[in-house]
């Protein structure tokens, strides 16, 4: 039996347009094992995943359940054993079909006999996903977390023995993530399914049986999370500013290959990325931000919302939410998918009308359309996925934003050059955004949002899908901005580890504010919590 379920990947390489995406990957997996793929954006995880799923051409050989395949056509005979969930929330779903219709549809295209046994399995899956009460709801009306759970159970309908998931939890809130993992754990125990999963959340990776670290198309380390963490313990120290030239720092940790005169702290899997970068001598320039051209001594309460309410039909998206943004403060807005964060931000931005309550900016109440125009010129906004114009180069995008904000041309050109240098995307100025790595797009979106020197910066999940190093650097930038510019920053994120870098946290649940306090106070109020994730979950119990 042990031999039957085994998956053997033997020197698999994938090339995209003559560029090597993954080179000679070799891996053996036993029945019921969960393998985590971690690595930066573009490191080759997705390519290997697609090769194993038999949906793209590859070189090398893959053996699964004693059948060998070298190409997508040879893998065809195994497709009934394989389940693939591609990257992107709700990508395999149809907005207009209900949950129940999805299950019937996927059962039909998989040609599954819909007997009692199947129906029992189906209702078990629905219960596990917590979707049994929503069988008649259309997929388009589900929250992101529910969509991912639905995608997962649709992929599980034909009882695959090999389940392949490409970043199933990116952009999903901690609560739904935990539920998703419960399903996976149950399935692999009941069915002996092999689960291959790529993830951007290191806490998730730490719970898997084995972790593979990808870098530039190669698997550079593999082992249990414990072994991997041990391997970098020696190089992890408490934050030691300007330690030496061969070190890298995040907001609370310094990584160095040479011994430092500092205390060690216990590393997480993220340390692997930093140590790997250090070993390959890919150092990052230190973050430096010059103060803004304009005045930064504005009122200490930048924005205040009192009793903000938004109603869609008979659904109350936001109910009497109070929030205050202070000068020089980073405020984290957290909550599950569908808790009303986006609605709230859109009201603050003036994109949605306010159904109740009042909003004031720098002490002035926002009432008329003219007020809203003024509001827009004091806000900088970085949207999810860093959407910018894909038919213009980085430079043209920035110039366009400057023109729209009526910044004089010479000031604009000077500012763009300065931001490009400080935020580190100088060499990409003439590239089209879609050709650039996500981390670069993130920083240039930030530059676009800062061109008009706003007093408030809104960031809507700016770090989803961005690798650990880029994320750490982004946070250093935000902290520097806060200090030098005295800007108020409102940020939403699903990385609970990032919440710890915020000065204050607002937690939302079902359209209402359930917590508003500093990190330290929250830890005091929840003495049993070890991590911020546990505090978050307590509000949802």
């Amino acid at each position, binding site marked *: 039996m042990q031999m039957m379920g085994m998956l053997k990947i033997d020197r698999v390489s994938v090339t995209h347009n003559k560029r090597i995406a993954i080179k000679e990957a070799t891996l053996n997996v036993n029945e019921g094992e969960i393998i985590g793929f971690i690595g930066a954006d573009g490191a080759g995880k997705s390519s290997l995943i697609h090769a194993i799923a038999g949906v793209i051409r590859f070189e090398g050989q893959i053996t699964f359940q004693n059948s060998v395949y070298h190409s997508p056509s040879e893998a065809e005979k195994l497709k009934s054993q394989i389940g693939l969930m591609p990257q992107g929330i709700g990508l395999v779903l149809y907005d207009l079909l209900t949950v129940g219709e999805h299950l019937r549809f996927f059962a039909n295209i998989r040609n599954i006999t819909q007997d009692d046994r199947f129906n029992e399995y189906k209702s078990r899956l629905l219960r596990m996903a917590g979707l049994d009460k929503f069988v008649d709801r259309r997929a388009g009306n589900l929250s992101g977390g529910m969509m991912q759970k639905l995608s997962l159970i649709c992929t599980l309908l034909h009882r695959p023995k090999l389940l392949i998931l490409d970043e199933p939890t990116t952009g999903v809130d901690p609560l739904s993530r935990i539920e998703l993992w419960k399903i996976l754990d149950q399935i692999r125990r009941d069915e002996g399914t092999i689960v291959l999963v790529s993830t951007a959340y290191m806490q998730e990776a730490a719970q898997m049986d084995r972790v593979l670290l990808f870098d530039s198309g190669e698997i550079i380390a593999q082992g249990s999370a414990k072994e991997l963490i041990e391997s970098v313990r020696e190089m992890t120290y408490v934050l030691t500013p300007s330690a030496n030239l061969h070190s890298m720092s995040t907001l609370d940790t310094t990584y160095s290959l040479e011994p430092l005169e500092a205390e060690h702290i216990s590393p997480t899997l993220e340390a692997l990325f930093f140590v790997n970068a250090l070993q390959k001598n890919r150092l990052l320039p230190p973050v430096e931000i010059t103060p803004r051209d304009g005045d930064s001594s504005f009122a200490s309460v930048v924005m205040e919302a009192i009793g903000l309410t938004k109603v869609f039909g008979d659904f109350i998206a936001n109910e009497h939410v109070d929030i205050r943004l202070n000068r020089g403060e980073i405020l984290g807005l957290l909550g599950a998918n569908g808790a009303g964060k986006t609605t709230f931000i859109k009201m603050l931005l003036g994109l949605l009308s306010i159904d109740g309550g009042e909003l004031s900016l720098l002490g002035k109440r926002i009432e008329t359309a003219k007020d809203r125009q003024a509001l827009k010129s004091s806000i900088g906004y970085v949207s*999810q996925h860093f*959407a910018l114009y894909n038919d213009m180069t980085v430079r043209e995008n920035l110039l366009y934003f400057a023109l729209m904000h009526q910044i004089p041309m010479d000031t604009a050109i000077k500012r763009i050059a300065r931001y490009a240098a400080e935020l580190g995307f100088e060499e990409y100025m003439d590239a089209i955004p879609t050709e650039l790595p996500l981390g670069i797009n993130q920083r240039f979106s930030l530059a676009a949002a800062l061109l008009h020197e706003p007093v408030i910066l809104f960031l809507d999940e700016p770090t989803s899908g961005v690798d650990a190093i880029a994320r750490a650097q982004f946070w250093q930038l935000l902290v520097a901005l806060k200090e030098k510019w005295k800007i108020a920053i409102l940020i939403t994120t699903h990385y609970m580890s990032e919440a710890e870098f915020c000065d204050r946290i607002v937690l939302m649940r079902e359209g209402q504010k359930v917590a508003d306090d500093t990190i330290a106070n929250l830890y005091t109020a929840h003495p049993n919590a070890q991590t911020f994730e546990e505090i978050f979950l307590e509000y949802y119990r």
Partner: protein
Amino acid sequence: MIRIFWSIVGKELIGFIRSWQLVLVVLYMFSVEVYIAGSGIEINPRNVAVGYVDGTAGGLSQKILTHLHGPEFLAPRRFNSQSELSRAIFDKEIIVGIVFDEDFEKKWRQNKRAQLDILMDATAASQAYTTLNYLQHIILDISKINIPVDIVTHKLFNQNADNHTFMALTELLSIITMLSIILTAVVFVREKEQGTWDLMLLMPVNPKVIILAKSFSQIIVVMTGIVISLGFVVLGIFNVPVNGSLSAFLLLSFFFVFAGSGIGLFIAAIARDVMQVAQLSIVIMMPLIFLSGAWTPIYAMHPVLQYVSFISPLRYYIEGSESIFYRGTEWIDLWPYFLGVIAVGGVMYWIGFRKIGRLF
């Protein structure tokens, strides 16, 4: 304000030129599409396949058949029985079948009522009916009936009665309608698709300026297409006569494109992606074209539809353009068309403008 307006226009034009697939489609529409319509659509019979069954000895029947010659007709094919002929018509080998009865020639000679049976494939309606018309003429000719009237025709405005030039122009006008609607809608909907819609709304710019500038950029694109199509295809290849003023046509086109882009704004307000833009444009555009008189003359329509056609700006545009090209109408006498296009188009642009303005 002016600087912002032109910045947005410039950005949209850059975006248009960089998406080479779209440029190719627009160029194709304005050149090849107009050319195919002008050279491809035939209303006069050409290469019509004729079959016949001849039960007579063949004197009179052959005389009639010799009148059916190229380029209008292929050499008539003989069939042995009516069922064989029917079969051939069913298989689309023959479009018009002629059956000469055994006593056809006898009755003719005796001056009794001779009967000539014609089978037609009415799916090729216009070709078949024009052929029927030909046959009636041939028979009138042969019978030498003495009618004391001579008909002398004077063909006005289109001296060769050439419908190539006419079809090319009509097609150009339809394409202008289609592209002014779709291009304008796509400019807005692409922002929705790329997720830049919120960013656009967040610009501290008057929404009216954004809408005007974005739709104006596409008006420029369509106007450029019109000039290219006029120069190379309509005037270059088909030699459409220009009896009036070209600048009057361009000005009329400009106002009409505004009307089209108003419809585009309306669609952009509803559609979520480019696919929906395509679907909605066809649903809205088809009645506009049907009611415009492009395919059926207005006076031939049902009276109710004749009234409805007053709200199609394309109606005024087509009548106006024909007047300019064929009739050589003076500027001063074009005012009804200008009035129609500007009034109906203005209302359409205003509706579209309001509709999309609500999203800002």
